[in-house]
């Protein structure tokens, strides 16, 4: 059984019900109370997102300051249920224009009920595609598209789209200026030992697109990934060009991508949905270019003093720069006083998270600023040896840099009317969980 949700609840952090949609009768009406009493008001909150209470299972997710709870009474498909929640939230976001939080829900609760009615029936997920739903569920609440503008959208076509096969794009779109925006967004996950050896490192990347294209265009995307290049050189029977090729560990695509063609020809070809969407996701573990190296030395001088020296080295091109760099260096709880010297940016001690927070707004490539700090500790008898050093954590964004080295080689747009398109390509690398043990 896929999801067969018996009920969906939206609760705020205090446990007040914001939305309450019962799909089936097989659970009691007191399920919200059960959730509040047995999960929200206990320490269990956050220990496990799937819980059984009585005969029902609760799947819950916190999104900003809202809990979304799905109640099922059968042996449901958990992965599907969570994916449904995530998709539903992104659908709501696309309706509210950005934020999904308690206020947005309170302001749009009628709309949410309308949508919940459409995206799930009797606990079975139905159509969740924003492009299609927006055709007939509008915030203005005008009459349905079928009858209001019969001339614009002939009925048989529109209904086919409501439920039908080309779920992601409607016909008859017209733009004055045909534009495609393509962003490659990578996040680097790193776990480095205190001795500087890489314990674990991988890159998860997304190709995000924003299409403003008329008609039914066919797009073709070429990347410098190994399999694609090899296939191409095979087809054109010329040797592979030298230069960096990237080996993708795994790729997943938006449903618009023709997977059969990808598997046979190794090209990414698709008819894009209108507007914003995530074209593909990939993961790479080999040959990752780490944008930053962190060299910490932390010396404990007796019981009440510590010396912290951290050098951060940027390893990308000198002409590039990173933005919003934050380095969080952990210090013990009983820190009393700190003195810093930094060669770049600003640092301060944040007692709430027990960290020295060092921020550098603009961090050029091939530089290595340092922080040296003296930390004085309150001497306590009780907490001898009890400081377990958490890792140093880093946040950053490096525009025009990909940790994987992935590049777009071409992006071709073909439409039968033969219009010209403007293509914009951007790259950005962010820190995922970038941890250095010390």
């Amino acid at each position, binding site marked *: 059984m896929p999801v*067969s949700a018996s009920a969906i609840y939206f609760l705020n952090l205090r446990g007040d019900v914001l939305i309450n949609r019962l799909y089936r009768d097989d659970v009691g009406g007191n399920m919200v109370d059960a959730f509040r009493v047995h999960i929200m008001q206990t320490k269990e909150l956050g220990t496990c997102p*799937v819980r059984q209470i009585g005969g029902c299972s609760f799947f819950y997710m916190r999104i900003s300051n809202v809990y979304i709870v799905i109640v099922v009474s059968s042996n449901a498909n958990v992965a599907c249920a969570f994916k449904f929640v995530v998709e539903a939230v992104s659908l709501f976001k696309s309706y509210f224009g950005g934020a999904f939080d308690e206020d947005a829900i309170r302001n749009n609760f009628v709309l949410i009920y309308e949508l919940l009615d459409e995206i799930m029936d009797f606990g079975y997920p139905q159509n969740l595609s924003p492009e299609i739903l927006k055709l007939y569920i509008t915030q203005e609440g005008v009459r349905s598209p079928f*009858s209001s503008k019969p001339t614009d959208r002939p009925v048989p076509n529109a209904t086919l789209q409501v439920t039908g096969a080309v779920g992601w794009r409607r016909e008859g779109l017209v733009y004055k200026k045909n534009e495609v925006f393509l962003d490659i967004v990578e996040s680097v*996950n790193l776990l480095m030992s205190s001795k500087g050896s890489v314990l674990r490192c991988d890159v998860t990347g997304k190709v995000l697109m924003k299409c403003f294209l008329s008609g039914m265009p066919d797009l073709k995307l070429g990347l410098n990934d190994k399999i694609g290049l090899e296939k191409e050189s095979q087809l054109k029977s010329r040797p592979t060009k030298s230069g960096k090729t990237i080996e993708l560990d795994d790729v997943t695509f938006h449903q618009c991508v023709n997977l059969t063609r990808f598997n046979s020809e190794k090209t990414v070809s698709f008819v894009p949905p209108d507007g914003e969407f995530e074209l593909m996701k990939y993961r790479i573990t080999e040959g990752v270019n780490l944008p930053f190296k962190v060299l910490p030395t932390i010396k404990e001088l007796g019981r009440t003093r510590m010396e912290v020296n951290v050098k951060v080295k940027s390893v990308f091109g000198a002409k590039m720069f990173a933005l919003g760099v934050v380095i969080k260096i952990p210090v013990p709880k009983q820190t009393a006083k700190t003195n810093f010297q930094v060669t770049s940016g600003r640092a301060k001690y944040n007692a709430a998270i027990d960290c020295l927070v060092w921020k550098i707004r603009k961090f050029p490539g091939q530089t290595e600023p340092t922080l040296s700090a003296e930390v004085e500790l309150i001497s306590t008898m009780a907490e001898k040896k009890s400081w377990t050093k958490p890792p140093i954590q880093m946040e950053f964004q490096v525009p025009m840099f990909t940790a994987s080295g992935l590049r777009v080689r071409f992006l071709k747009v073909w439409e039968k009317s033969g219009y010209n398109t403007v293509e914009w390509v951007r790259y950005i690398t962010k820190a995922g969980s970038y941890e250095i043990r010390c």
Partner: protein
Amino acid sequence: MAPPAQSHRSASPSQPSGKSEVSDLKSQLRQLAGNRAPGVDDSKRELFKKVISYMTIGIDVSSLFGEMVMCSATSDIVLKKMCYLYVGNYAKGNPDLALLTINFLQRDCKDVDPMIRGLALRSLCSLRVANLVEYLVGPLELGLKDNNSYVRMVAVIGVLKLYHISASTCVDEDFLATLKHLMLNDPDTQVVANCLSALQEIWSSEASTSEEASREREALLSKPVVYYFLNRIKEFSEWAQCLVLELVAKYVPSDSNEIFDIMNLLEDRLQHANGAVVLASIKVFMQLTLSMTDVHQQVYERIKAPLLTLVSSGSPEQSYAVLSHLHLLVIRAPYIFSEDYKHFYCQYNEPSYVKKLKLEMLTAVANESNTYEIVTELCEYAANVDIPIARESIRAVGKIALQQYDVNAIVDRLLQFLEMEKDYVTAEALVLVKDLLRKYPQWSHDCIAVVGNISSKNVQEPKAKAALIWMLGEYSQDMHDAPYILENLIENWDEEHSAEVRLHLLTAVMKCFFKRPPETQKALGAALAAGLADFHQDVHDRALFYYRLLQYNVSVAEHVVNPPKQAVSVFADTHSNEIKDRIFDEFNSLSVVYQKPSYMFTDKEHRGPFEFSDEHVNLSPGTESADTVVPAQRVDANDKDLLLSTAEKDEGRDASSNGSAYSAPSYDIAASQTQKESSISNSNIPGNTLPSSSAIDDLLGLGFPIETATTPTPPPLNLNQKAILDPGTFQQKWRQLPISLSQECSINPEGVASLTAPNALLRHMQSHSIHCIAQGGQPPNFKLFFFAQKAEESSTFLVECIINTSSAKTQIKIKADDQSASQAFSTLFQTALSKFGFP
């Protein structure tokens, strides 16, 4: 327009705060009902929003039903939707009022706008009122034939809703055949998918009673149907694809060519952006190749990458759901994942439920080539802020040590843990060192040196303390001050709350005694004395057993308590293979997350009616075995409970609560029905094991008064005042006869306390025609054997009676020639006994 921010949480109907507002709304709605002025829809909308927002926060607005229906005559679609929502919510509770809505819903079902038709039909089917079923059939039939797919899609689910309201109507009206036809012929895939969902659900639930339904369910898995779905799979929405894949996973292909065809067709599904589709495809691949070992291995290799991607993307909740599945596969085939161990390294900020699964996977994949790295990584976590995770990681190190051949380095790490001077680390490490020594006694020298440095004062957790005491006993010859540490512990006997520790203490001091008699003798004496006086039955019995053993023959005792041991080669696995396979069959469902087959959490008989047990999501494998045992016991207990009147229950409670520490919980079990938790904990803690016989005995004892009350009263039992039985015959009979009754009861505490020798009791019992044949023991424990004979015939009763004077409690075992009379005799005996001590 926002719903009012309500601070009160109760969902109870008609709250005082809402009452005046509701009646306010009522009058406003009335005013608008007949109004057709332009712009009136906007004010209606505001009012409707208010009503819906009250409904959401749990204020009962069902009293507005009539007004809401009156206002529903509108062309505004949003108004209509709000009205439908309202009606759907309250129709069930107000079936009479629901009739009012039928009219306008039926009218809407014939609207020119397919949107309205669909919405109205959906609401009509959501009324859930059994006596309105007749109004559903017509619109549903029309809906299924509608030329608009939106309406058909709604109608299909409508049939399923109808089935849940009235299964017979649904079956009789032949909707199922229509659904089947639509499923195989409709051009719209969402309609097809909904048909599949509906038919699967209906036929599965019908299958138990109707043969035809079970045939139809089988037919869904036939080759033509499965191929029909497979060929269209790319047209389906991502959610419907999950549904189809689930169906395909159950399909049994006829030959290997078919298997490869299906896998080739579905290969690209592994690259789908929706993780649920990927997981469903993985299930298909795994199930199809189960019988082909080589291909099955290749499938593992193929699905590794997509699974690892899914784990590392998405929210923690999503990755937890995927990780649970990865966990299952890793445990099934650890060697395939042994090179990917780095993916299971924990990140600092990950939630602990993710970390816990990762630790288990790290443990599973450890082999000769990666052990060093994994153990190094695990040791990092031992210093983690999150104490449960730190404990888990230490345990993981220990498990790896127990499954490896070369444990050299690991032993050093474990010993380092002991030196970290953190109580919980020490505690976990001690338990591990103990297990390690049981498997690798050759490491005793290194370990003992470190263990000897640990002050027993710093070890508080029962398990750790027991482990330390075990080592003190086992290696007392190598630890200089072992006897003295034990002696210290025995001095604090009364403060030791854990029976497990006390049991270990008894055994350890015995072992120590055999190795170093002069130093331990005093401690041993103290331990035995304390043990004999212990209120815990197991501790008491073990002390008595040791005492007798020593009395009998010291060298035999040594052989029993401290025999030469063989190292343990394999520790028992907690999950049975059958359960593992069942979970695997239910891949991609809750079973995998809960790590138990679905019948354990969906079937009623496997859950208590009201239990809100925390144990359920407990991922520790230990609960598994306990779970399977519990139901039988509980059913028993429930049945007994039904038989008992409250008065009798109280009586029983008194009898047991006087002295027996462990029978009390078993009564609570029977009484409160929340037994699952307690019985699990009981059966999980070895030191506190509820001796199963005593639980049953209690129940029998309780059941007894009922039987006498319901069956015709038997003639009063008269005993022969001058019964004679020679000891030889007694012994012979005692050996031959089965125990017909065994129970505990209390006796007058004052009388027993003054009992310095059993003679007084013997005389007292004799006055009740119950004769003593043998007696023994020392304060506080006496053991007596009695016999009695019926006055009329030569039928004999034999009794073994153990009296503990400190707890004023006796244990009685009765054997009888005439089993049927033993209950009556037992009452007689207890009455006699209870009178003892009174003038």
